[in-house]
């Protein structure tokens, strides 16, 4: 496996080459020539093929027994048994949160173990790392986030992810009496499991909801609405002022799902949503909350409460329009404060509101919030230094780095109460308050995580039309159910189940 791994990175690029590059190049040669030549080369390509096919099936392989407990001698200050001087490679998603916070943690690792740390900041985690996993030489610690992230379910089922139980059992950097599992939020542990194995550490906490400028509301004497009906009424008043009530990132319609899906779970209750996550038959069509929420959006669209042209805006463009006061509300996640910082006016008073109540008899109480563990960190079980990868995460889970994260990127981490006593930025403070007020009424959704092609491409396409008024709520529900059923029937898509 080791000896053939060097050639492996070529293989996964095959489809892309066939699709684009090669076609262009061979245009100069002429297709007929190419056919003739490829026939003539048959003799040569046969031996080459067997040589290359050895690579395609060469890397990876069975489960590594060592993945349960890697590393060398352990001690109180080095509970994971990191070897001194063992180099570490970190691959960090460099998106809305940047990668400075990870670099700071790497610096501490470097100082403690006198080892080289190779850092890569990228938005292309998936395309860059797919060949390396296939080749058996992945980096040690990876922030697998962003639109082009790796499929962690596949990685997990194929034994590529380090079991992080050792990390959970290790003492916290701040208090040797506390284990890591005691200082991080329970939902982080819940979400990071594949089956019974905890192999993904969601470092951050993302608060989803309706984001707005408290100042804009105060200036006009408006109140953040409590129910869907109040929202419609308020939208009417906002529109009278010549301002658009809502905008959204039409280029990425799944931004709308942040609110839409969560709102369904809030009104219909978690049991109804779990049926949706589990792709159960009629999960969408039989749930009254779906009808209520989707019809709400249909009404917003029919009354033209969305900023004109929103369907063609990127997330950045929609946030900029919102910062400029062209629209009041935007569905978003708590990274928005950091991402929109360059265009946010100083007195904007960015805030996030909880989910709205429906027409009574809601499944979950007022103040319910969707908060998801986010920024999934994984450690490669077949990397060179899995113990070092886990140690890097332990460093990041210290109070020092959790606060550094909050300061640098204005976002919460999974470390409970790490920001206590800090002065928080307006958006983070608002998110923090909403999170506290929600208490146990926290919604966590899996559908997008598990079936991104269903939510982003299929349902996203429908939502795009729903918000431009081209599609009626009834059609949206009907087609969404059809798409979900199609995924449920598709054997090539791995299925997941959740109980709670």
């Amino acid at each position, binding site marked *: 496996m080791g000896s053939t791994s060097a050639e492996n990175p070529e293989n996964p690029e095959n489809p892309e*080459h066939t699709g684009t590059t090669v076609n262009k190049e061979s245009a100069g040669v002429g297709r007929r020539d190419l056919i003739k030549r490829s026939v003539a080369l048959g003799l040569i390509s046969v031996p080459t093929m067997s040589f290359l096919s050895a690579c395609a099936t060469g890397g990876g392989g069975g489960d590594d027994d060592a993945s349960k407990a890697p590393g060398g001698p352990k001690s109180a200050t080095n509970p994971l048994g990191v070897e001194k001087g063992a180099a570490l490679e970190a691959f960090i998603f460099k998106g809305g949160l940047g990668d400075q916070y990870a670099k700071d943690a790497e610096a501490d690792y470097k100082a403690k173990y006198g080892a080289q740390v190779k850092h890569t900041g990228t938005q292309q985690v998936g395309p860059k790392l797919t060949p390396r996993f296939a080749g058996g030489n992945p980096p040690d610690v990876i922030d697998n986030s962003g639109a082009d992230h790796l*499929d962690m379910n596949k990685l997990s089922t194929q034994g590529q992810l380090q079991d992080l139980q050792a990390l959970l059992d290790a003492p916290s950097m701040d208090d040797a009496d506390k284990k890591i599992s005691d200082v991080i939020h329970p939902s982080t542990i819940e979400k990071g499991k594949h089956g019974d194995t905890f192999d993904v550490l969601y470092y951050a906490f993302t608060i989803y909801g309706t984001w707005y400028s408290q100042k804009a509301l105060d200036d006009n004497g408006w109140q953040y609405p409590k129910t869907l009906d109040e929202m419609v009424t308020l939208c009417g008043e906002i529109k009278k002022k010549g301002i658009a009530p809502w905008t959204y990132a039409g280029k990425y319609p799944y931004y709308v799902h942040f609110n839409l899906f969560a709102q369904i779970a809030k009104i219909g209750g978690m049991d109804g949503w779990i049926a949706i996550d589990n792709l159960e038959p009629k999960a969408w069509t039989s749930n009254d909350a779906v009808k209520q929420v989707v019809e709400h959006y249909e009404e917003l669209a029919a009354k033209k409460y969305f900023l004109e042209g929103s369907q*063609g805006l990127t997330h950045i463009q929609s946030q900029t329009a919102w910062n400029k006061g062209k629209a009041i509300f935007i569905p978003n996640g708590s990274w928005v404060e950091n991402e929109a910082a360059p265009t946010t006016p100083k007195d904007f008073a960015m805030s996030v509101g909880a989910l709205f109540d429906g027409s009574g008899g809601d499944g979950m109480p007022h103040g319910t919030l969707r908060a998801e563990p986010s920024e999934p960190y994984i450690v490669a079980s077949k990397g060179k230094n899995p113990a070092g990868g886990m140690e890097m995460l332990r460093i990041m889970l210290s109070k020092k780095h959790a606060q550094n994260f909050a300061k640098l990127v204005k976002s919460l981490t999974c470390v409970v109460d790490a920001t206590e006593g800090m002065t928080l930025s307006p958006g983070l403070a608002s998110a923090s308050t909403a999170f506290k007020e929600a208490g146990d009424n926290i919604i966590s959704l899996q559908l997008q995580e598990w079936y991104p092609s269903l939510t982003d491409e299929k349902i996203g396409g429908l939502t795009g039309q729903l918000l431009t008024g081209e599609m009626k709520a009834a059609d949206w529900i009907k087609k969404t159910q059809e798409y979900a059923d199609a995924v449920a029937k598709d054997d*090539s898509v791995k299925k997941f189940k959740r109980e709670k």
Partner: protein
Amino acid sequence: MQHGKYRFIVGFLALPVIVYAIFVISPFVQAFQISLTDWSGLVGTAKFVGFENFERLWNNEDFWNALRHNVYLLIAVPIVTLALGLFFAFMLNVGGKRRKNEVITGVAGSKFYRFVFFFPQVISITIIAVIWFNIYNPDPNDGMLNSLLGAVGLDSLQNAWLGEKSLALLCIMAVMIWSHVGFYVVLFSAAMASIPRDIYEAALLDGAGRFHTFFRITLPLLWDTVQTGWVYMGIIALDGFALVQIMSVNMGGPDGATDVMPLRLYLTAFRDSQFGYASAMGIAMLIVTMTFAVLTMRFARRERIEF
């Protein structure tokens, strides 16, 4: 003299042929091989599944939808691009007013135009896509196209462009054409320069105008070049990945209105981690592209005029 000829040829060809075989032919062959497996792309093991991937592909509505858009591009983009390229090249080289001592001339400032037309060709396709994406920004103040329309009082034409289901593919087509016309202006200009001037002179003496000069002389004598351009443009139209991936709403949207085969392939491979299935798509694309190239070469063949 024949002695050692083959050894000589083999000596020269061996290395390039081996390089070509490893880096061009073997990926093709391996794509075939992988397309018969369920390889995820993430680990080194894969299961042989026979033609199952191709069966799925045949029943995949999304892929047919993407293929249909590629066919639209294939019909519209080469025709418009080549027609514009020919027109501009003709105007720059032949279409000008008659001047003293010169049989044929281009329009005034033709050297400058030729330079400007070539601009898009030197910009990377990614940058072109990003620039045009911002031009199409639907915001009436920030979007270049919309604010321009607003400034001249054509507010009614303001649009969401890429967010509009009926317009999105046309918007992308326009960019594709815009970015390639310049190359064909230069290519056709070079070809026109090799047409002997006396032919034009004779035509002019017989009283031929611009119209007749173009259709009776320039176009027939350029046919070989046009044909090459056609194949080349066709292959570009069957791709379209970069523009669609960067510009389109929701990756090939709205609601699949701009989806193309390579994007489908990319998403299948890198988002869904189904490299085997994606390879099958690659094979399907190869077949479509080859069919197109062979048909074009067959039916566009004409008698060559020696001069």
